[in-house]
């Protein structure tokens, strides 16, 4: 049934409509004053901010994102396997399917072990 997915679109639409509506109601009922003085400055505990926040950041974050992409793709492979493992067992291929996935996971664990060994997983 197409309705399966129509609900997803509907929930997204109603969610957006609700958030926009609450922001609009708040815009109607709240007081609006002109932003004067230091009110519109970014809050940095009372100090006047020096420069922009949009500057170069720590590179350490990047490697975790790279590892995350790899393991996310792995998850995309694990789910179909998890779904059919019982079916494979009743088809007499249970052990076969199990070892297929174990090989798959083992190869990825080699990657994780490599990252560990190289000190990438250490936060500094």
């Amino acid at each position, binding site marked *: 049934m197409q309705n399966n997915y129509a609900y*997803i679109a509907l*929930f997204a639409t109603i969610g957006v409509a609700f958030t926009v509506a609450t922001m609009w109601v*708040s815009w109607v009922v709240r007081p609006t004053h002109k932003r004067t003085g230091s009110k519109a400055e*970014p809050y940095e505990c009372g100090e006047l901010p020096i420069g922009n926040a949009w500057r170069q950041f720590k590179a350490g974050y990047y490697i975790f994102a790279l590892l995350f992409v790899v393991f996310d793709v792995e998850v995309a492979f694990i789910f179909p396997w998890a779904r059919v493992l*019982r079916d494979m067992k009743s088809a007499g291929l249970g052990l076969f399917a199990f070892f297929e*996935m174990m090989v798959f996971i083992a190869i990825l664990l080699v990657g994780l072990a490599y990252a560990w060994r190289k000190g990438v997983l*250490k936060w500094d």
Partner: protein
Amino acid sequence: MSLTLTGIIKLVFGWLHIPEFLVQPTVMIVAAAIILGFILLVVLYLVYGLRKVMGWIQARIGPNRVGWEGLAQTIADALKLLTKEDIIPKNADKWPFIIAPIIVFVPAYMVYLVIPFGKGNGWVVQDLNIGILYVVAVLAIPTIGIITAGWSSNNKWSLLGAFRAAAQIISYDIPLVLAMVPAVMLAGTLSTQGIVNAQQGTWFGIFPRWFIVSQGVGFIIYLLAALAESNMTPFDIMEAESELVAGFNTEYSGMKFALFFLAEFASMFTVSAIAVTLFFGGWLPIHPSLSFIPPVIWFLGKAAVFIFVIMWIRSTLPRVRVDQLMSFGWKVLIPVALLNIAWTGLLVILA
């Protein structure tokens, strides 16, 4: 005709002579609105509950002024936030700043599409084929909103908080999902109702056949990862008040702040509901002889127990350090979760 939402709307429409093809769209919209109302109600009383529980644990009495025993306190807070002045910092990137709360809240609401509140198709809005995978996919979206909020604020605290948040979420997303996989393996389906149905029955007529029996380790991984994923206290380094002011939402005020707050508490319920569905038999009673209590009461009751556990953890444990947090996720949780999958695989094929 039984007392169903479709039945009621059909009856009303027939009485008002409204064309019948409008029935189904109306049913869908009403169902979505009921869920939205449910979230708002749950969040109001989760906030109250959290403050009360934390109060008792810290030997205080918590909110007790507005309404009977402070029951109207959160309503007052919500009204206050609605009428607060909204400040957008002058260097902020205006449109992303406004859109960010929407990106965070909408996925938190969309997840409720597949939560099985009770028995049968009437108690889940839509029992999607991809069920639990839908939850995993939709919950990946708020990260974007958090980074957008931090970046568009043009505040160093916000940006630092947002990047810590994103790094934490991506580190704990993998163990979270890997802890969900064993339930799918045991049930042989991704649908949330299917997973609950697979947990029916008892061992020796006493012990319920819930997945927690073989998935103790999986559940602990799930709980830890879910706490980290939804920024709850032992893992709330992203909005660590003492270090980062308030993290990614430092610059937010009024209703936009309220939406972040709403999303956080909505996902507190989601985390508990998914835990109940995957490990504790969803709406199933603890013993078949107790099935005179309606399934929905069982479901909400079990979810309430988890919510209490989360609040308890929140008010007891101190915050972990960033480096401990990152290495714990990658070096402990992911390998253990993979071993847990291997063990469950053996269980499935040898049983």
